[in-house]
């Protein structure tokens, strides 16, 4: 899932302080699971903002809506009829949702209420860790199912580098060395021979280097 983290309330206040009719828009997907932008967080943020404006002596209308998703036309259309009631929206979906909203509702400023962090997993409640960078050319078959692009701080494809110490990365003891994990995994899969094969140069054109990306499935567009 896409993992996001709440922006500090002060930053959100700075974004919206000059508006008077504000919609806080949540998303029922990834950001709900990582407890950053679901219905519950919409409620918490709306209450905090109401409190702030009350203390400031400003009359500001703050509404709450949480859509099924903010990355599909059909759900964003659900609020079309009510959009003219607002002079600003704080979307606490991921950056995808914020942008899709902005594309759809040209005349309304859409502000981000979360920082979109990465694609990852829930290790336990309150702890999410990164697993995929969407580089567009998956090499997990050769690395025992552990991604060095995502999990190695230097994206070393023929690792480990000289900074791997007792299973940890040189940048932080709390971070596992991806290549220690890969070597351990290849060992348990009995595939250590794979280790000495030189990993070829990475084609970054499928990553961000190639500019904004798209997936086209003509069979589905019929």
């Amino acid at each position, binding site marked *: 899932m896409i993992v996001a983290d709440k922006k500090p309330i002060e930053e959100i206040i700075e974004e919206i302080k000059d508006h008077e009719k504000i919609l806080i828009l949540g998303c029922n997907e990834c950001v709900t699971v990582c407890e950053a932008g679901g219905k519950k967080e919409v409620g918490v943020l709306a209450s905090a903002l109401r409190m702030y404006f009350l203390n400031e002596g400003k009359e500001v209308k703050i509404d709450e809506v949480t859509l099924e998703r903010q990355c599909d036309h059909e759900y964003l259309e659900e609020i079309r009829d009510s959009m003219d009631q607002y002079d600003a929206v704080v979307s606490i979906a991921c950056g995808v949702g914020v942008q899709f909203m902005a594309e759809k509702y040209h005349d309304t400023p859409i502000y981000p209420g979360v920082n979109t962090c990465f694609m990852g997993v829930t290790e336990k409640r309150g702890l999410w860790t990164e697993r995929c960078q969407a580089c567009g050319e998956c090499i997990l078959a050769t690395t025992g199912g552990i991604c060095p692009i995502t999990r190695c701080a230097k*994206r070393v*494809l023929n690792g480990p580098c000289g900074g*791997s110490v007792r299973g940890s990365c040189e940048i932080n003891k709390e971070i596992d060395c991806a290549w220690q994990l890969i070597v351990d995994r290849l060992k348990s899969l009995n595939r250590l021979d794979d280790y000495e094969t030189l990993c070829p*140069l990475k084609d970054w054109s499928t990553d961000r280097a190639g500019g904004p990306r798209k997936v086209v499935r003509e069979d589905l567009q019929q």
Partner: protein
Amino acid sequence: MKSGSNLEKVLKAGHFAFTGELGPPRGCDVEEVREKAQHLKGNVDSVNITDNQTAMVRMSSWAASLILLQEGLEPNFQMVCRDRNRLAMQADILGAYAHGIKNMLCLSGDHQMFGDHPLAKGVFDIDSIQLINMVKIMRDEGKFLSGADLHGTPKMFIGAASNPFADPFEWRVHRLAKKVNAGCDFIQTQCIYNMEKFREFIKQANDMGLTEKTYILAGVTPMKSVGMAKYMKSKVPGIEVPDEIIKRLQGAGKGKVADEGIKFACEQVEEFKEMKGVHGVHMMAIEWEHMVPEIAERAKVLPRPVVD
């Protein structure tokens, strides 16, 4: 001859190589480079010029290498994967060679968070092993990475680093094998303090036939103080300092610690001279260049051979 560099000639002739290191200045003070170079001149076969070491911005390694050439020393141009993509790397290799630089050391580079610009984006377009292979393709096949022909090929003597003390230990020698397969001509190791572990590493390399395919220069950094030893033990990733070294320095007595550090370094050099599979020593006297003449003298590696 692959490059005809002095370092290559010395190694090929079967001499025990002795290389030095020089960190470029944090500014454009040419005199600082010249001053450091004078201490190394005649005492080493080639001088590594570090490339933004520990991710601190310094005068670029190729530029400081050129100053060394002007001073009549042979540089070993270090290049890290952290700061350049494959275009910049190839361009700098061509430019460096065009100006007479004949040795290169291919490195991953310390992570940018250790340096003075921790907010920077690390490039890491290719890794150090792919860099080795890229220089080899340029040199031996006369091609860019794209496959296009080069007009004039950089005849570099290709070096790489090896850290026997990083983990997983049993796989360090296999990574060395990868570097050899990728095309490196010589290896300079991380600073060695744990001699027992290094002996085991070099035995593995000998058993795998790697020391016949590449020259290995053992890395030595003399300890200047007990504080330095403790710092390297606890703070520098991938460096192992056994407690007995620290005890030995502590026991040296006031004012004699640095001398004891040099003494230990010289004992190491003596052992490396006799060690099968070790072809030389890379002396990294960090910010201690002025001590290199004395270290070289006491390590009995002078005079340096002159090979035509």
